[in-house]
């Protein structure tokens, strides 16, 4: 009984005052948000556990398209979510290996050779990344 009454009093005492050091992380987050508008939103929306911290499909599509567009041999205007690396984007088999490696790097994945050989188009790449539990 007495403990229940003490509760609010204790809470009032331990209220934190904002000190310069505790406001710094927020300032850093605000600065990050200013330079990358999506970074803060992504950071806030991401659950703290690694469990079901899955990427949304739109995010995967956007980032895969960005990787393709930044490849030196790809014409950015031809990149769309249904494009085939060799038929639509004019890449050869060596370019395809480079592109798949770049996608690996973007999502911090390691795609085994057998799987990587099969990825020859954007739909397959998007499919693979969005189904991968470790994609980040």
């Amino acid at each position, binding site marked *: 009984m007495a403990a229940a009454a003490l509760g609010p009093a204790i809470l009032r005492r331990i209220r934190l005052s904002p000190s310069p050091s505790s406001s710094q992380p927020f300032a850093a987050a605000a600065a990050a948000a200013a330079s990358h508008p999506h970074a803060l939103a992504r950071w806030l929306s991401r659950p703290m556990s690694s469990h079901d911290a899955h990427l949304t499909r739109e995010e995967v599509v956007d980032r895969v398209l960005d990787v393709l567009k930044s490849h030196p041999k790809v014409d950015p205007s031809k990149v769309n979510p249904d494009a085939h690396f060799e038929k639509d984007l004019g890449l050869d*088999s060596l370019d395809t*290996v*480079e592109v798949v490696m770049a996608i690996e*790097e973007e999502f911090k994945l390691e795609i085994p*050779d057998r799987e990587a*050989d099969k990825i020859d188009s954007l739909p397959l790449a998007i499919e693979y990344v969005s189904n991968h539990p470790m994609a980040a």
Partner: protein
Amino acid sequence: MAAAAAAAPARSEVLSLFRSFLRTARQFSDYNIREYTRRRAADAFRENRALADEPAAAAAFAEGKKQLEVAKRQAVVYSLYAPKSKSIMEMKLQ
């Protein structure tokens, strides 16, 4: 060994070797070495892509495997002398 080396490598073997080069290149801590290894591998594979006769293709493949071992060793050596600061090329421009 000698008999196996004479046959031309399969397409998938060549692509797998190229992928191994790119993976090894990624391990270099120094930007310049990392990019050079990647570029050098891509250039060499493009240069040799048209090799028609089997012995030449097999020789190029064997040479590539040897160079991959060199690159792997060098990645370990370079990791002991990692640069203390990043290259300007690695910094994201605002």
